[in-house]
């Protein structure tokens, strides 16, 4: 936010500024390593399939947050990328039994990235609410294509997608092996997002988010920056979708429906837009809530409850869980 205004100051006092950034970075890395440690032992205590679902949605939400939180672009069509990753990977793994899993996932991821490039080229021509409406309409177009296309299995979806062998060697049919693979995929995706956010490119992205005319007047190619962010986000969303399909051995229209685009917005909003860990927390809360509700007496009310959380978040809790915690820590410990 303030990095652009602070530049002259930083030039005068490089050591102080650099020291502060180094400390922040150390804290961040330490925190992430601690989280990773927890994730490594988590399947001992929690059902691995649930954890894998959580990780897939967390990656989905993190990828979405890259766009909303750091580029200020609200996409209402991310379900299309999730579904594309899933369908392409599911189709390839079902059709070519010798194909190793990671190649199938790679193909799904690339396909989503290409679709993201197409969406991005169209959607960045308009701003704000129009951007949201265009992405929503394009995703609906993709949805209808998948309803009719022969390779998606229509209403039934692709069922019984084989998990296959990682690198042609490691059998992924056991849930524990699958879990550690999914964890590796998540860590990779998360690292890409972190690297993007904290790179000079990420700084420019934030500058565009905060003041687009100023970024333009400073000579940045705003459209190209936005487009790249859109493509990265779509690609990683495809990675999440592809991985999810391998985990559940299923690719279905649910992933392509606009409800899914709404859900990922809710995860990000609830966790905290523009925070590193917010989407993780938000995905955790929403996925847990959904699986908890679907087994209980309130199962039919899931959408109503999600809607209520949506309204409350917008009205009262805009910083999200992580944003709120961060404020709390700053107020009391600094």
């Amino acid at each position, binding site marked *: 936010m303030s990095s652009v205004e602070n530049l002259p100051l930083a030039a005068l006092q490089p050591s102080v500024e650099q020291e502060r950034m180094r400390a922040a970075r150390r804290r961040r890395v330490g925190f992430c390593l601690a989280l990773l440690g927890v994730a490594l032992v988590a399947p001992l205590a929690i059902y691995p399939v649930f954890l894998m679902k959580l990780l897939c949605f967390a990656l989905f939400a993190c990828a979405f947050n890259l766009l909303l939180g750091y580029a200020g672009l*609200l996409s209402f069509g991310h379900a299309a990328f999730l579904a594309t990753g899933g369908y392409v990977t599911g189709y390839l793994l079902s059709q070519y039994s010798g194909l190793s899993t990671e190649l199938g996932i790679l193909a799904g991821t690339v396909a989503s990235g290409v679709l993201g490039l197409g969406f991005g080229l*169209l959607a960045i*021509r*308009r*701003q*704000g*609410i*129009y951007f*949201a*409406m*265009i992405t*929503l*309409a*394009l995703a*609906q*177009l993709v949805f*209808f*294509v998948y309803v*009719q296309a022969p390779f998606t299995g229509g209403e039934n979806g692709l069922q019984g997608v084989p998990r296959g062998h990682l690198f042609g060697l490691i059998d992924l049919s056991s849930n524990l092996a699958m879990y550690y693979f999914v964890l590796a995929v998540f860590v990779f995706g998360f690292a890409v997002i972190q690297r993007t956010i904290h790179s000079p490119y990420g700084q420019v992205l934030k500058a565009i988010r905060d003041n687009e005319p100023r970024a333009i007047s400073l000579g940045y190619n705003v459209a190209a920056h936005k487009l790249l962010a859109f493509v990265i986000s779509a690609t990683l969303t495809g990675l999440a979708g592809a991985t999810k399909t391998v985990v559940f051995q299923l690719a279905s229209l649910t992933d392509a429906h*606009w409800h899914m685009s*709404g859900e990922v*917005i809710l995860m990000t*909003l609830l966790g905290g837009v523009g925070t590193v860990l917010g989407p993780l927390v938000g995905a955790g809360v929403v996925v847990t809530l959904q699986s908890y509700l679907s087994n209980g007496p309130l199962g*039919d*009310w*899931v*959408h*109503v409850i*999600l*809607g*209520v*959380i*949506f*309204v409350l*978040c*917008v*009205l009262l809790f*805009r910083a999200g869980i992580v944003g709120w915690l961060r404020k709390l820590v700053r107020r009391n410990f600094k």
Partner: protein
Amino acid sequence: MTLIFGIPLGVLLGQLLLGLINGAFYALLSLGLAIIFGLLRIINFAHGALYMLGAFAALLGLQHLGVNYWMALVLSPLVVGALGMAIERHLLRRIAGEDHLYGLLLTFGLALILEGGFVKLFGVSGASYPTPDLLKGGVNLGFMFLPGYRAWVVVAALVVCFATWFMIERTRLGSYLRAGTENPKLMQAFGINVPLLITLTYGYGVALAAFAGVLAAPIYPVSPTMGANLLIVVFAVVVIGGMGSIMGAIVTGLAMGLIEGLTKVFYPQAASTVVFLVMVIVLLFRPAGLFGKEA
């Protein structure tokens, strides 16, 4: 029988009429969205849910209170419009002046609540609403059969659309609305009650959606999800037309309905996607929309 491009004339005109009816709904809904957007700067994601609510109000009124179709056509928009005013007064007003995206998200949440609640109460399959006696049957025009109710839908929607256009573009109240769209602060300084104007505007936009819902009830199954899918098409219509002009919203809505009808005749597989494809083409060649000013 006359053939046009190998299609019997009757079939072609029948599909065009169906397209025109869809177009009438697109026009009514995108008109409501445009009016609301003009003053509130909010894209009303709950518009589809409120359209659904209008249809349900008619259905429930008929089943439980004996409210007939013609009364429902007046009462349902009033009831739903009042609900809309309550939503504006108590929810949307709290986020006025904030980033417009919050309005989108808030109304999206409302749409989830309304639709989820109705699915829980009435199931997804929906019910049918009887066609009013007066409009049963139809006229044989010689080259095609014109069902009375469908003709009525087109006429009613067009009359309401143009009455709305007249009210906004040609009356004193409409001039307040247009001035409020340009500069609400200055309006307030002139002693116009702008918050009231905003509430009434949202109520009117919502009432238009409910009116469309009642019109749709005898044609389409009245189900909780009837609004959601329609709304996304209407969003595409809004992107195509741009939200700059009232007439633009009406014309684009009708035109998209006709294009959809034609596609059903010549290439039915693309009927559900053609509006989105038109949107893509418009974005490529005229990003601001056909009637839009660059915002």
